[in-house]
């Protein structure tokens, strides 16, 4: 297993602590002139996003994390399993609903997304920033109301519920920001 020793420590390093992948987000070198060198590091868990502080002394090492970001295509859902394909190797990967989290709301079959592999196993994925979804059901809007500050709930083709301006109709295509879940605009076919 590859390791990094303290002389290789720096921001951006992907490392493994207790089997979990972390990103080194800060590394400060402190040393008394005639004393022990210390490396004060701040690390972020790549999945939970929790931040921890660790101090190392020169000569220490940390296991490297084999973390790779790949382009993947979403194929289909089977119960709580979501199946993706590496667009380069055609290899298939499965993620659970837990790993997917809220992103299921935006997943349409055939959609491209990015996926994170840790030691060769998929651990999370991210959909494109913007996706276009068809509105499957909503209450009809008040006639002539084009104001976007009046909103209503709609159900989109993935089964997710979103909030849209009241002028959106059933069958419309809407563009959504997947980072915030916000409606952006109506899209023409």
């Amino acid at each position, binding site marked *: 297993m590859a390791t990094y020793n303290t002389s290789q420590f720096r921001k951006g390093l992907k490392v493994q602590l207790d089997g979990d992948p972390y990103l080194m987000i800060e590394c400060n*070198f402190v040393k008394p002139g005639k004393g022990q060198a210390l490396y004060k590091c701040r690390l972020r868990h790549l999945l939970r996003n929790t931040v921890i502080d660790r101090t190392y002394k020169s000569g220490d090492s940390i296991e490297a994390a084999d973390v790779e970001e790949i382009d993947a295509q979403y194929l289909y859902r089977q119960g709580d399993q979501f199946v993706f394909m590496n667009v380069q190797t055609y290899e298939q990967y499965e993620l659970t609903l837990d790993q997917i989290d809220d992103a299921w709301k935006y997943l349409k079959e055939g959609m491209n997304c990015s996926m994170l592999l840790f030691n060769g196993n998929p651990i999370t994925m991210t959909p494109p920033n913007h996706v276009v979804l068809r509105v499957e059901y909503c209450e009809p809007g008040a006639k002539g109301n084009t104001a976007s500050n009046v909103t209503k709930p709609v159900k989109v083709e993935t089964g997710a519920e979103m909030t849209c301006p009241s002028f959106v109709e059933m069958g419309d295509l809407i563009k959504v920001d997947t980072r915030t879940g916000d409606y952006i605009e109506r899209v023409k076919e």
Partner: protein
Amino acid sequence: MGGDSRRRSRLVLGELATGVASYSRMTAPPLHPDFRPTANWDALRLWAVMLARLRRFFAERGFIEVQTPLLSADTVIDRHLDPFRVEDAGRTLWLQTSPEFAMKRLLASGAPAIYQVTRSFRQGECGPLHNPEFTIVEWYRPGDGLEEGMILLSDLAEAMLGRGPAERVSYRDAFILHAGVDPLAADVASLRRAAAEHGVATPESLDALDRDGWFDLLLVGLVAPHLGRTQPTILFDYPPSQAALARVRPDTQPVAERFELFVDGIELANGYHELTDAAELRRRNAEANHRREQDGKMPLPEESRLLAAMDRGLPSAAGVALGFDRLVMLAAGAKTLAAVTPFPWDRA
């Protein structure tokens, strides 16, 4: 909760995307592609002005400026200093971690008060306050002891920084005040306890019995940050195990006649009432090498021309080494050496 975690995990992916290539290829830190200096011309001008002021300070006191080799067959043996090794025609030379050995050879050969401004090299020391190559000012005055050494250092700090003369705090008093432990009386378990009680981040690999390692941890984590805040501070009378090349004063509680200057919590200079006993230096060299081997480091040559000089007789003297880049950095109100030097390590 779900939506929120979604957003955060995307940020992580973004960071990775802009990050570096595959981990297996990452061995050395990348070099910065920019050819331009990191310091602006105001800072570089201040550097030059301060160097002129420093030379005037020493000239006014009758010091002679000397220059000694950067590459030498001899090198300081310190547990925590790693010199760069250079090979030439079957001969091993070392880039000097400080000009100490050569300047003491001059002292043993009848030198008057001498000073030097030169480059020094320490492997692996790289960070906001460290550069593996840096400018060092080092001076020796025969006849000086601890007291005279500290007075001269205080005068220099006042002349260069204009923040008043230095206050003095003994290592013992500073540790009692800021770490709640008496460093001369405490066993290593008390040092460990002090670190834990104050929540000092501690490397897992730090040997529970490595007394000096715990001293360093407490100094860096708890003591130094308080030093030199309102005026420069000289910390003096170190534990004998931290003597390095200082003589140990055989009081009821022996202490090393070592002193250091701190400004804004930053270590600026290190001085000794110099050890003159060759047998004692041989003992400390062997001890330092033993420690180096335990730390998995290369042992360094124990015999040197300095020892030959000390065998002949080194006059009693005080000597100090000062980090000049850090001095300019503090005068400029900067936070990094890169702000006052043109080409730090990744642009060297």
